């Protein structure tokens, strides 16, 4: 097993919006939707990113947030990022025939390749504003796309979860729901799925150190490792994960309320 970052060149950088860039890398991997890679920004940091493109050259889509992602947003094609992986279980798209995908913000990244792998799923894409919407073009081609924005600047005004609720209320029968996005959103999707008894696969996010090796425990949610046991979890696991939607661990390992964690992650 070679689990150290190997430098690969950035082949192309796509500006998705003012805050989000997609980095196409000079690398091919045998990966499935929902898996992630650990990305090393030499001398700066190493972070997990979901694969937003898995066929041909792989790509990751990165939202500018902190030290590492700011540095990445300054990089140009030709510069080198180190990658290792892919890691994680990924989504199990296996039997889904009528699927609904719920994406919040940057959480759309791992869900686009999933949408492309499924048979015309319903895709509910949520973002704060029109400007924050991601992958609209790609998603239109492979899914029945619903759009929500918090401010109503595009699509429906409000949360993506309310579309899911409405569809279900209208009698749509989904045999699988997939979601990724801010944890409060995912918690809400989980509750909706639970009440409708629909199998959910939610992709969680936690700060990682060994990222995929499964030995440091940093990413654990009630003793379950997001990097090695997840990052995608089904209803049964989510039920056991009492910290899901509630708390997460800082770099010191201290467990704090999700809000405090999110604030720390913004830095």
């Amino acid at each position, binding site marked *: 097993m070679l689990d150290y970052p190997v*430098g*690969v060149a950035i082949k192309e950088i796509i500006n998705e919006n003012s805050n989000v860039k997609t980095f196409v890398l000079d690398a091919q991997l045998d990966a499935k939707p929902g898996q992630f890679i650990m990305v090393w920004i030499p001398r700066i940091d190493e972070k997990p990113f979901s694969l937003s493109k898995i066929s041909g050259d792989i790509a990751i889509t990165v939202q500018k947030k902190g030290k590492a992602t700011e540095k990445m947003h300054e990089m140009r094609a030709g510069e080198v990022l180190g990658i290792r992986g892919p890691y994680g279980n990924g989504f199990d798209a296996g039997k889904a025939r009528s699927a609904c995908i719920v994406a919040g913000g940057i959480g759309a990244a791992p869900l686009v390749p999933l949408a492309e792998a499924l048979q015309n799923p319903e895709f509910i894409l949520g973002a704060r504003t029109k400007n924050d919407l991601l992958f609209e073009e790609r998603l239109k081609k492979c899914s029945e796309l619903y759009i929500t924005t918090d401010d109503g600047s595009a699509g429906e005004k409000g949360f993506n979860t309310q579309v899911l609720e409405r569809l279900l209320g209208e009698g749509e029968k989904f045999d699988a729901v997939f979601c990724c996005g801010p944890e409060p959103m995912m918690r809400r999707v989980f509750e909706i799925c639970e009440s409708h008894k629909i199998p959910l696969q939610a992709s969680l996010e936690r700060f990682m150190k060994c990222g995929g090796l*499964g*030995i*440091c425990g940093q990413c654990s949610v009630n*003793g379950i490792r997001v990097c090695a046991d997840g990052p995608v979890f089904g209803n049964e696991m989510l039920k056991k994960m009492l910290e899901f939607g509630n708390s997460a661990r800082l770099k010191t390992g201290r467990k704090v309320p999700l809000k405090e964690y999110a604030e720390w992650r913004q830095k």
Partner: protein
Amino acid sequence: MLEVDLCNLRLKNPTILASGILGVSRELLQRVSDSGAGAATIKSITLNPREGHHNPTIIGFEAGIMNAVGYSNAGIEEAKKEFADLSGIKIPIIASIVAEKPEEFALLAGEIDSLHQFSAIELPLSCPHTPGFGLLAGQGTPEATSAITNAVREKTRLPIFVKLSPNVPGIGELAKSAEKAGASAITAVNTLGPGMLIDINSRKPVLDFKCGGISGPALRPVAVRCVYDVYESVKIPIIGVGGILTGRDAIEMILAGATAIGIGSGIYYRGMNIFAQVCREMEMWMKKNKVKSLEEIRGQAHA
């Protein structure tokens, strides 16, 4: 047939989760216990919270794992909350504490002792990659080992495990000074090296701390030799740690003289089930070789 007595702790089997691997929360310890470990060690804690080194902190290479985590931990106050009640966990839990000075070690030991949750205290005096601690603070000398062990001994009646480095000229001598100062057992060993990995495309060392301690298969033969040397030097039991992946590796350590064995990196190679797997493999070998207890073969490679 795998039961062992380690400083009066009754372990149902000799596999112990090594410090720094998974042991950051009560629930992970529970899970390790459910996976069949005979005991588990928490990740080392310090007086104050520490973020540790920047990422990358842990990588796998061809022959093992390299890490420079740098003792990230939430500090003793958080630890007291996290580990306030371990009663639900049916295996002995070992506390691991590190500090810069003997008095600080003593203070931490006192806190741990008064929690009444832990079955022993481990003192890693041997980290090769964290400034202020272990080898980088000169804690791997007989004098420092002696001073620290003494200071802790005064604060607790719990068994003290002194964890040594493989990167010292005479590990036997070091073990002797720990034994003399009141150590109840020797944990051998901590990580090797340190080593360095450079990415040739970015032309930079990969670990943010540049170098890190080596564990896993690359370490195993060195760890076995260390256990063998320590066994010839002291009377107290030894916990053999380093690159144990299989029942074969565990038996090898016992033959070298170990009473119990630690597993860390093995979780990377075989998953959390490694504890049960190693135990099953040991049992199979014992049955085939008509060995009734580990006591029977302990240190036999010295014969």
